[in-house]
């Protein structure tokens, strides 16, 4: 179901002002580069000749006593968002369609209101009670409902494609007669009555044939596309799709029109610029993702303090109280906190913020208190703290579980997530990590570090014949080769100021650079496992080959230490 709030901004202004003010011609204006421009006008203003898009000066020339009121687009959007949540009384799922429409999914809910006609009547009545002019329409797809609500004439309902019997389209229109007339005088694209309006829609009939008489603007296209279509002489959706108004059936013409559309708009990928895409969305052949509006309040608890706090001990008490409150709020929702923000308002107007993130959703007051206590050491209370607020800006579902009995944590130790939280708060969030394999042959790229409790991505099992060192240096350290064997492998080298004699060697294992990622001058590496005379085992490599054209004499590096 699509609901078009025909004159949302004017209605909002009227609700805020007096009936006397409404009787005077009034226009809502927005400052633009060329002076104030009218965005909407009330009935008296429309009668006096003010139109949306006019410059205020031009309108004043027509009607000198036109009152100008600044428009409030941000307020309109906020009101629309509230209305979207409110409109979920008719269906479980609603979406914003700025600037002035709502979409509600009413699949399977019409019977609760006694049928689709009565559902639409209920919608119109409810919005009228709220003082808002609304045009609802019902259709199987969001696009078709939008087209009907904005440009539909009589039948505000398109029945589902299969199934039910005849729906007389006129039923919904008669209820909204006064409002339909009102919007008709404002909005010109309502096309004149097509001859005879055809037979009432039959069950299973093609939706396109029902909508063929609507103007192309009902496809939610951009202005420049509409201009292009107007220049081509295409005014109605039926002409665009190659479908006659009623009765005639010509598959060839339809295919030809479709083909012409595809060729003309072949490099337009956004739906608003491509009539073919919009047409398919309207018919339900292509999915149209919509962003639903979900009302979700952030769990928030606060304490206003009778006397400003200046010492740490009472602050800890307040914090423990807040944590207990927060746990109660979270428990009521079945959630656990992942991120908590503590804000402390000081008497002198400063606000101190402390934020912690948790490795897993938690609902333990003692744990929260303990984590924050570590972050409160550097708080400067100044002349005192008068208000403390704790909010969970990120929470995740967490089921109720058996609480730890008596001093279980004391006896049985902490859980892993709690341990990681404590470490993260003291050592920083990047200190506690888990190594995970990454798709690369370069040893230092072959592993990355991620937060320890996140799922490990799937990776290839390491090859059994690759002997990798137990530890890798963060940065390969250059070694000075003092004496090399005839095949180029060092016999004696110096690393960290100590000379080592190589006793045993295995290699080379050649690892080529990743040409798809690195520069073409990156050199390959020949890795050798070596053991020196004292039994120390290392992983060394030669960067490049002599005469590979990517630099001078190749250097040697030590990268890994074997156990």
């Amino acid at each position: 179901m699509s609901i078009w709030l025909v004159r949302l901004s004017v209605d909002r202004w009227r609700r805020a002002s007096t009936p006397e003010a409404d009787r005077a011609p009034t226009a809502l204006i927005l400052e633009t580069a060329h002076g104030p421009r009218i965005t909407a006008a009330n009935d008296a203003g429309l009668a006096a000749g003010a139109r949306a898009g006019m410059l205020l000066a031009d309108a004043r020339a027509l009607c000198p006593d036109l009152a100008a009121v600044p428009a409030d687009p941000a307020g309109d959007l906020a009101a629309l968002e509230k209305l979207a949540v409110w409109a979920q009384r008719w269906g479980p799922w609603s979406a914003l369609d700025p600037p002035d429409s709502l979409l509600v999914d009413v699949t399977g809910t019409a019977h609760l209101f006694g049928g689709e006609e009565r559902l639409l009547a209920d919608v119109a009545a409810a919005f009228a009670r709220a003082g808002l002019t609304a045009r609802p329409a019902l259709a199987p797809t969001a696009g078709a409902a939008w087209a009907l609500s904005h440009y539909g004439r009589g039948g505000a309902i398109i029945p589902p494609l299969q199934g039910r019997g005849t729906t007389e389209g006129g039923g919904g229109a008669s209820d909204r007669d006064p409002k339909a007339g009102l919007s008709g005088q404002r909005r010109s694209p309502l096309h004149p009555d097509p001859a005879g309006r055809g037979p009432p829609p039959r069950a299973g009939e093609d939706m396109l044939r029902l909508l063929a008489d609507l103007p192309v603007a009902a496809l939610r296209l951009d202005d420049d596309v509409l201009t292009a279509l107007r220049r081509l002489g295409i005014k109605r959706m039926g002409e665009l799709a190659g479908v006659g108004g009623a009765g005639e059936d010509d598959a060839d013409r339809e295919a030809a029109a479709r083909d012409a559309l595809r060729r003309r708009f072949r490099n337009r990928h956004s739906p608003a610029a491509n009539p073919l895409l919009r047409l398919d969305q309207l018919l339900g052949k292509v999915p149209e993702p919509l962003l639903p509006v979900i009302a979700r309040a952030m769990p928030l608890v606060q304490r206003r303090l009778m006397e400003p706090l200046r010492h740490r001990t009472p602050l800890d008490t307040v914090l423990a109280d807040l944590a207990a409150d927060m746990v109660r709020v979270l428990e009521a929702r079945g959630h656990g906190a992942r991120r908590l923000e503590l804000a402390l308002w000081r008497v002198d107007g400063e606000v101190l913020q402390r934020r912690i993130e948790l490795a897993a959703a938690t609902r333990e007051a003692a744990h929260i208190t303990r984590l924050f206590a570590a972050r409160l050491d550097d708080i400067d209370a100044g002349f005192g703290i008068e208000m403390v607020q704790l909010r969970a800006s990120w929470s995740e579902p967490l089921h109720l579980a058996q609480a730890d009995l008596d001093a279980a944590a004391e006896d049985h130790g902490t859980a892993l997530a709690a341990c990681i939280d404590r470490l993260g708060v003291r050592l920083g969030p990047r200190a506690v990590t888990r190594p995970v394999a990454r798709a690369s042959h370069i040893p230092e790229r072959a592993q990355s570090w991620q937060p320890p409790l996140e799922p490990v991505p799937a990776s290839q099992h390491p090859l059994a014949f690759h002997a990798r060192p137990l530890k890798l240096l963060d940065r390969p350290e250059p070694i000075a080769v003092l004496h090399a064997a005839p095949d180029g492998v060092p016999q004696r080298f110096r690393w960290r100021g100590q000379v080592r004699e190589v006793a045993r060697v295995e290699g080379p294992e050649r690892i080529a650079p990743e040409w798809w990622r690195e520069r073409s001058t990156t050199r390959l590496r020949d890795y050798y496992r070596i053991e020196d005379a004292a039994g120390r085992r290392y992983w060394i490599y030669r960067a490049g080959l002599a005469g590979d054209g990517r630099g001078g004499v190749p250097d040697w590096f030590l990268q890994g230490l074997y156990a």
Partner: protein
Amino acid sequence: MFSKPSPARVLSCGQPEPRWRPGLNAQPFHSEIFAPAGEASGAGLALALARDALAAVSGEGEDTRQVMWVQDRATIRQGGRPCLAGLPQDLAHRLIHVAAATPEDALFALEEGLKCRDLACVIGEIAGNPRALSFTASRRLSLAAERHGVRLWLVRLDAAPDLSSARMRWSARAAPSAPGRWDAAAPGPATWQAELFRARSHAPGQWSLCDDAGTLRLAGDPDLAQPMESGAAPDLVHLARPTVGRSLAARVHA
């Protein structure tokens, strides 16, 4: 108010073996391993001892608990970080690495890890003799480990053996490895010269230990029919199927 006896007292009630050997049931909760910084022998021996202890203590079933590895900044600079592909297969997927900036932070992380019931064991690496790692600090670690039953192997890189309350104190260095089966010129499996210089329940002594396919063994152990059966080295003995006493042609006819 009663308190249950700590796992340390429960487990160590068997009669102590005078001489240490791999695979003992009574394993200490807090060990220290002194090793030079320029080699990975300390970490390697710590891992091998930890795996030895976990295999001896745990029953059937795969151990899925996490292993925490704490390093301070100096040890990361000197010895690098653990390499995923070089870790033993059964540990690689359950390693949590903690990079602490200072020895104080590393000690804090070690103690938090010992208090955590979901960890199999904790391995720490601290370089030198920092002032924070006093006898009191090591006593705290010992008590936490024995209270919560989580074992700790603390590797001390380039450190002098000062006062400590560790139950077993090792001094380790790399030793020349046995020749590989296929390539005598290649480095063999990890081998260490380990000296137990202080232990509560064992006599001090020296061992030459090696890592045989993830199992800690005495190097040159006469009981082993095939010493160096398959080491960490690429010793592909398992990929070739042994034809025991019969030729392949004989098997076809059989």
